[in-house]
């Protein structure tokens, strides 16, 4: 089966375990991307307030979760 066909089959699957596994993976991916982007924003001098308003969450929420972590910044 070609890659495209395989994808089409999987996407049309009604098996909950397929869909739920995808959601769980997506959540982890979102977490990774969010952290990467926030770190990038901080290293470019964005304030927590600016980051929070683009993400659509409160400043406290972002700050509580990410303050004190310098990920990519650490290697520079």
């Amino acid at each position, binding site marked *: 089966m070609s890659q495209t066909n*395989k*994808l089409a089959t*999987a*996407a049309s*699957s009604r098996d909950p375990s*397929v*869909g739920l*596994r*995808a*959601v*769980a*993976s*997506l*959540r*982890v*991916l979102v*977490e*990774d*991307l969010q*952290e*990467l982007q926030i*770190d*990038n924003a901080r290293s470019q001098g964005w304030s927590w307030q600016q980051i929070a308003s683009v993400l659509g969450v409160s400043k406290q929420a972002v700050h509580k979760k990410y303050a*004190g*972590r310098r*990920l*990519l910044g*650490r290697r520079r």
Partner: protein
Amino acid sequence: MFQRFTHSARQVVVLAQAEARSLRHNHIGTEHLLLGLLGETEGLAARILNELGVDRDDVHQGVVDYAGAGPVNQPDAVALDAIGIDLDAVRRRVEEAFGPNALERTRAARARTEKHRGVRARRHRRSCGEGHIAFTPRAKKTLELSLREALALGHGYVGTEHILLGVLREGQGLAALLLSRSGIDFDLARRRIVEEIGPDSNAG
């Protein structure tokens, strides 16, 4: 608590912990003890359970069905494919902007930070095979009952068969549920074990 446990019985506890960890569960319950009993194939309990038709893989599947598995720690490319997201494509784009292995580095850095932080830290240590996983009250009760069963039979040690008797006696946990789902008659199972060991025998 474990002084009187035989080598096999201790193995059951070690295996129970390993089963909990591999399911990413944050507790050791009666279901993990049952998986431990089935996994310790040297033990009398495993033999009796097999003779009674209890299958390790069925029980494992039952645990996943009832209790689920713990949180996913990294994105699964196949799972994401299913909803039309190409993880490799995402990774390529991210790496174009942020350098090689940017996603992995972020995740690793997060894991390092979480080591030092509350609940997420504990969850991380568990998922990485570190740290202590606590027994549920029922699992603790089951182990206490196994000691009591041994003493009642006049045995000076706790073997895998006593742990199994403990599971049957406790009767309320997920292990008991899965056993009854396997069609086990608890009274018959108890009799079968007691026949096998009798008072003062030296089984494992």
